[in-house]
C-alpha cells in the first residue's frame, strides 16, 4: 500500500499533498484543543515506531506477499494523533527503505491516514458498547475495515492515474490480485485490533483514545 515515486501523475501527487495537509491541519487543531496536547505524544511516538517497523513484516499470501498496515490499530490507539504519526512513519519508510516515495508521501498519507481516522471514529462512536462481545466485534470491524478502506483507496487512486501507454487490463488484473491478497491481512489485523483493545479495556482503559 505504498505508492512509489514516478507512478502517479503530477496532478494526483499534488492533490495528495493538499489532502494530507488538510487532514493533518484538522488533526493538529483537534489535538491542540485537548486539555493537554502533549499527553498523547509519548504514545504517538511509540506507535510511530511500531508502524514504521510493521512495513517490514511480510506475510506470504501466494502467489504474492503483503505487509502489515496497522492503520486501524493506529487510529484506535492514537485518535487524532494518528495522521501525523502515520506521515512521520511513512517519511522514514520512504527515506530508509524505499517503501513508498517522497513525492507520493501525501497520497500514501491519505491512503493510510483516512482509514485510521475512520477506525478512530468507529471506536469513538461505539465506546458505549458495554457487552464485551459487541466491543470486540466493533474493534474487529475497525481493524479489518481500515485495511479494506486503504486497499480501496489505493486501487482507486492507481486506476485514476493509470497512464495511457500501459496495458490497462493487465494492470487492473494485477491490482485486483493484490487487493484479494489483502483479504487475509484484513482478517488478521481485525483480530489484532480486537485483541489489543480487548486487553486494554481490561487493564488500562485510558490507553484507548476516544477523544
Amino acid at each position, binding site marked *: 500500500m505504498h505508492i*512509489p515515486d514516478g507512478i502517479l501523475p503530477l496532478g494526483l501527487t499534488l492533490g495528495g499533498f493538499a489532502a494530507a495537509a488538510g487532514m493533518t491541519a484538522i488533526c493538529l487543531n483537534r489535538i491542540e484543543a485537548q486539555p493537554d496536547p502533549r499527553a498523547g*505524544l509519548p504514545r504517538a511516538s*511509540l506507535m510511530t515506531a511500531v508502524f*514504521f*517497523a510493521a512495513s517490514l513484516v511480510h506475510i506470504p499470501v501466494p502467489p504474492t506477499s503483503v505487509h502489515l498496515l496497522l492503520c486501524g490499530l493506529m487510529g484506535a490507539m492514537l485518535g487524532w494523533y494518528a495522521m501525523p504519526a502515520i506521515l512521520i512513519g511513512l517519511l522514514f519508510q520512504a527515506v530508509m527503505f*524505499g517503501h513508498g516515495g517522497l513525492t507520493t508521501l501525501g497520497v500514501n498519507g491519505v491512503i493510510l491516514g483516512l482509514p485510521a481516522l475512520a477506525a478512530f471514529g468507529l471506536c469513538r462512536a461505539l465506546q458505549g458498547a458495554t457487552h464485551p462481545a459487541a466491543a470486540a466485534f466493533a474493534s474487529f470491524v475497525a481493524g479489518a475495515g481500515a485495511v479494506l478502506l486503504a486497499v480501496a483507496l489505493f486501487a482507486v487512486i492507481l486506476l485514476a492515474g493509470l497512464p495511457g501507454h500501459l496495458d490497462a487490463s493487465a494492470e487492473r488484473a494485477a*491490482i485486483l490480485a493484490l487487493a484479494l491478497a489483502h483479504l487475509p491481512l484484513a482478517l488478521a489485523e481485525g483480530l489484532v485490533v480486537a485483541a489489543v483493545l480487548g486487553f486494554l479495556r481490561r487493564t488500562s482503559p485510558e490507553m484507548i483514545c476516544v477523544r
Partner: protein
Amino acid sequence: MPSPSAKATAPKLATTGLVAMWLLAAGPAAGHGAFVDVTETRAVAIDARYDTDEPMAKAQVTVFAPDDPAKPWRVGQTDTAGRFVFMPDDRAGRWAIQVRQAGHGAMGYVDVGAAAGMTLTSSATAGLAPMQRLLMVACVAWGCIGTALYFRRATRATVA
C-alpha cells in the same frame, strides 16, 4: 509405322522440353534460401524484483529515451522471472526504465555513451542486508522511544 507407345512419348517429350525452357528462363530460385547476419550489439537486461526477492513476473516495462523523457520509447512486459531485455538505439545519454505492477515499481537508469559503453544505476534501495535493515529499524525505534521518554518526563515535571 510408329508404335502406339512412341506416339504417346512424343507429346511428353515436348511438354518436358517446354517446362525445362521455362525453368531456365525463370532465373535462380528465390524464397527458400535463408541468410543470417550476425552482428554484435549492446543490450540492456533488466532483472526486476521486489524487496522480498520475489521476481516481478509479467510486470509492465516502459523505456524512455534520453531526448524525450515524457514519451515512452518502448513498452513491454517482463517474463515470469522478472527479466526484460531491450536494445537502445544510437542516442547517447541517460535512458530511463520504469517497471511497475499493481502500483509497485521502481525506476532504473542506464547511461549509454557514444563510445564508453553503459553505466547502470538503480533507484531502488534493494540490497540491504538483514542486519542493516535491523540496525536501521533499531535506530528509528530508539529515536521514537527517546522522544516518548522526553515528553513523558516533561509532562511529569509539569504535573509536579
